[in-house]
């Protein structure tokens, strides 16, 4: 444990990147996920088609490949630098990749949530003359969101763990698992305590998230 504690600054630095990646990607993937869901239930066939193709395509591609495209393909192809320093540039590309990928799962969860809203409610709203957007915004999505709090929590946990892949796949964000691998490779820390230390770090991030969302989902559950 000594060697692990001796490198505590590296460990903390690693986890700080993990947390930053998780929070930023969570925000963007949620927004994109809501947009995709709205498109997938919209009256315009083209929008439904585009959203479905996007979700099915990205969802079935390994995240490693999605990030590889972000790291090696798109960033330079468009000639856009997202930040002045390399560290932040790769960070933002990792956020884009993680968000693009996670949004598919947010959208899948939300769509399942939309299906839990009783038909009567939607029909009542329509009979009151609400348009599709009003219906979605005022009646369906609020209820759908409340019913998918639990699954969205799982998506967030999965996202937390997925940030480890940003350390490879052509991006090289120096997050927690990368720091662990470096410690293994350099032989500066005994393997088992190091692993347990990093594992605890991830459990500290994921377990409370799970409990919180479990509690929240019961609390906001729509009584039917």
């Amino acid at each position, binding site marked *: 444990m000594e060697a692990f504690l001796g490198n505590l600054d590296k460990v903390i630095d690693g986890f700080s990147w993990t947390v930053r990646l998780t929070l930023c990607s969570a925000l963007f993937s949620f927004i994109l996920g809501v947009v995709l869901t709205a498109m997938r239930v919209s009256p315009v066939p083209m929008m439904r088609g585009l959203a479905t193709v996007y979700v099915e395509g990205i969802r079935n591609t390994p995240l490693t490949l999605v990030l590889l495209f972000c*790291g*090696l393909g798109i*960033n*330079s*192809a468009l*000639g856009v630098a997202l930040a002045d*320093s*390399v*560290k932040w540039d*790769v960070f933002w590309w990792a956020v884009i990749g993680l968000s693009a990928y996670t949004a598919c799962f947010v959208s899948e969860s939300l769509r399942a949530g939309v299906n839990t809203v009783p038909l009567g409610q939607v029909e009542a709203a329509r009979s009151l003359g609400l348009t599709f957007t009003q219906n979605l915004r005022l009646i369906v999505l609020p209820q759908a969101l409340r019913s998918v709090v639990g699954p969205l929590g799982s998506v967030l946990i999965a996202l937390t763990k997925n940030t480890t892949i940003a350390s*490879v*796949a*052509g*991006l*090289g964000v*120096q997050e927690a698992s990368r720091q662990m691998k470096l410690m293994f*490779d350099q*032989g500066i820390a005994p393997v088992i305590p190091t692993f347990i230390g990093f594992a605890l770090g991830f459990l500290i991030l994921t377990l409370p998230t799970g409990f919180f969302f479990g509690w929240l989902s019961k609390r906001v559950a729509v009584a039917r």
Partner: protein
Amino acid sequence: MRVRRISRIGTTVAAGAALLLAAGACGGAEMGGGDGGGGGETITIGVKYDQPGLGLDEGGNPVGFDVDVATYIAGELGFEPDQIEWTEAASANRETFLQQGTVDMVIATYSITDERKELVDFGGPYYVAQQDILVAADNDDIKGPEDLDGKVLCSASGSRSANNITEDMGIGAELREAGNYSECIELLSNGTVDAVSTDNTILAGFAAQSPDEFKMVNAPFGEEKYGVGLPKGDTERCEAVNEAITKMWDEGQAVEYLDTAFGETDFAFSEEQPEPEGCA
């Protein structure tokens, strides 16, 4: 009903087990070399699979300078080419492979360092490479390591070459980490990084692939003594390897191999045998 249900579960489990067995039977399907283990009449050698010119997997068989050297040394040790089992030795797992005995020998751009000598034995060196810098063909700003200040330099995961410049030489280059050198080359070709720096042998291999796109600045510095990695404690094998290396240079085979690998590039490889270090 009950019986039918149970027998169905039984069938499922049995089918699963059968599939597992079948998978075991075809589990030997690996790219290139076998899965190590060695022993018996074969020798297992770890080489790079992803470095053009040195060790590159060409649809199942590694080819390159390291591979030629390995074949020669194995021949001197009494193994015919068909008795060699190739296995991929990535930078990160070379020590582990030798310590575990997964491979008998590692010839994979493996530099002799004091740190590594604690863990494994080295025969050779069989070649001394120097570090150099690869830039885009139209780049005239970078002429040596000191010009890298403020530039973006690609570093391959598990390699120390980039750290030599930023830490040991104290030059303020920004590092962009990629999985391996071919990812670095991709980043260099699309302009995300300004330069790739590592052993000139490795760079020459990539430069040879697309000569119009990249050029080496030819400002070599430092030295990387490529050794033959061996499990710790086998002095006899180590001596035999050193004899083989000397013979390979004396017969002129070494230069021939270098010429095959790099002859078409402007990389001026050294034609002298490096000073043997002797076995501890």
